[in-house]
């Protein structure tokens, strides 16, 4: 299955987490999405959101001021 991609760069709260939330709703269990955001607060948000919703945070990285998260739908 191909990994989905969301470009949430330039978006501020609640943009990135909203986009991720909407995308995940359309995904099947086990499907993955990669999201890039420049909102620095997204890093903590995505971590906390995955923990609370049970979706799996496969990776979370920050380089060149862009935060990249890969999330697998639970």
């Amino acid at each position, binding site marked *: 299955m191909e990994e989905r991609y969301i470009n949430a*760069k330039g978006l501020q709260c*609640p943009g990135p*987490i*909203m986009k991720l*939330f909407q995308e995940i709703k359309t995904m099947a269990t086990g499907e993955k999405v990669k999201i890039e955001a420049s909102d*620095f607060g997204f890093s903590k*948000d995505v971590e906390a959101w995955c923990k609370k*919703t049970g979706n799996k945070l496969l990776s979370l990285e920050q380089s060149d001021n862009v935060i990249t998260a890969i999330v697998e739908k639970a």
Partner: protein
Amino acid sequence: MRYLIIGAVAAGTKAASKIRREDGTSEITVLTSDSDISYAGCGLPYYIGDVIKERGELVVRKPEDFKMEQDINVLTGWEALRIDPVAKKVLAKELKTGEEREFIYDRLILATGASPFVPPIEGVNLDNVFTLRRVTDADRIKRQANSGIKNAVIVGGGFIGLEVGENLAKRGVGVTVIEMMDTILPGFDKEIALTVQNYLKEKGIDILTGEAVQAFKGDGRVNEVITSKRTLPCDIAILSIGVRPNTRLAVEAGIELGPTKAIAVNEQMETNIKDIYAVGDCAENVNLITGQRVWYPMGSTANKTGRIAGINLADGEWSFNGVLGTTIVKLFDMTAAKTGLSEADARKNGFDVVTVLVPSEDRAHYIPGYRMITTKLIVDRKNRRVLGGQIVGEGVVDKPIDILATAITFGAKADDLVNLDLAYAPPVSTAMASTIVAGEVAVNKLDGKLKGISPVELHENLDKYYVVDVRIEPEFIISSIPGSVNVPFGMLRKKADELPRDKEIVLVCKIGKRAYMAYRILSQMGFENIRILDGGISSYPFETV
């Protein structure tokens, strides 16, 4: 003319240099008991942290340099013992040889500085219990840091203590800060101090507040710290409880102290005794807003007062009318700064204040690398004058705090901030700069367009309010105020009927924008008992769920 200066760190050497620039021929002598001169005391934590590797990078000038470049005689290792203001002479002793000598002066400057306060606690004299003031103190602490110590205990959560803590933590040392008050960063309002506190905890520094150190234990060398609540392992302790002005010489010579117990000076930096001036950390200041005598021992003020005394002594004329108490500290990537009165200071001084807490980007949001900063303004409700400001965040803080310091110096009202013409280009700022936005919120509040509630007030009275979080559900899930109800902004009109009319409603969003819009909607629907949470949940430093 013979000028004599006692003290050779920032203010003393600055005064000497300024006198020389004004007066090319007089004799200028500087005495110091220290072995180092003209160093940047504020840089010492970074020397310990190895940001500054060699001590020579910190202590740049030596007595020979002053002699050669400016014909100023700097005598190190000479302790001034007594001033005779009638005969105009100072008795001093060379510490190495014990030799005593009299130095005759026509004009004298006291730049005796301040010394760390050492509390009378059991074991305070054990090895590895340090204070940090001189370069030699930093040398000792750095040697310990180099030797691979594991646990450091910082006593006192002020700037120096936290900066040393940060620098030791970056070198892999476990750091615990013990602060007797409720929050670290004395002088800052609670919500700002707590923001920094939470951040430092995330960075791995343990912070224990409301706790007092009772004893240092160890066999010759400290290995444990006993507090009012626990026992901590400790290889090195740094006492950073505060400093006291060095005034013994002055008092014994009949020089008056002010209400703060630092040396009283007039606007020319002259003491009550003619031809004796006091500058830097040993001298008092005046608070520009309250007009009260205050004591803010700051490197920035020391340099300025040294220079001003230099001008006046050399028969020039310059007046120093006071300070705002502007300060800034950077810890890891977070910066906290303040200028003017804090909310607590302002209330203590009887001001009826309006405060705002406004998160904002430091640069355009589409430029990767921008960060949020939160601006607090303290405004006089009566005349709308800005009394103070505090800014905290991982973004650029020094620029907006200096804008505020400048504006406050010139008596700006909140309305004046709104109209400021500030520099803008996306990589460096925002079209509506944080200072302007904060000014706008203040004006809205002053004009009665909205009622806010500070995070501290909400937290302390949480059960009194019906807290409505207007963010979208995924945001609410991430973290929310305990007991709050989620009504996303888009659903507000539809769900307004379900909101209570008999209880005060507090509207919450992430930074305050959506809560303000919700406030306007609910007001128009006839709700009267509503407030918005100042700064939103992003500035709420208390427990969330």
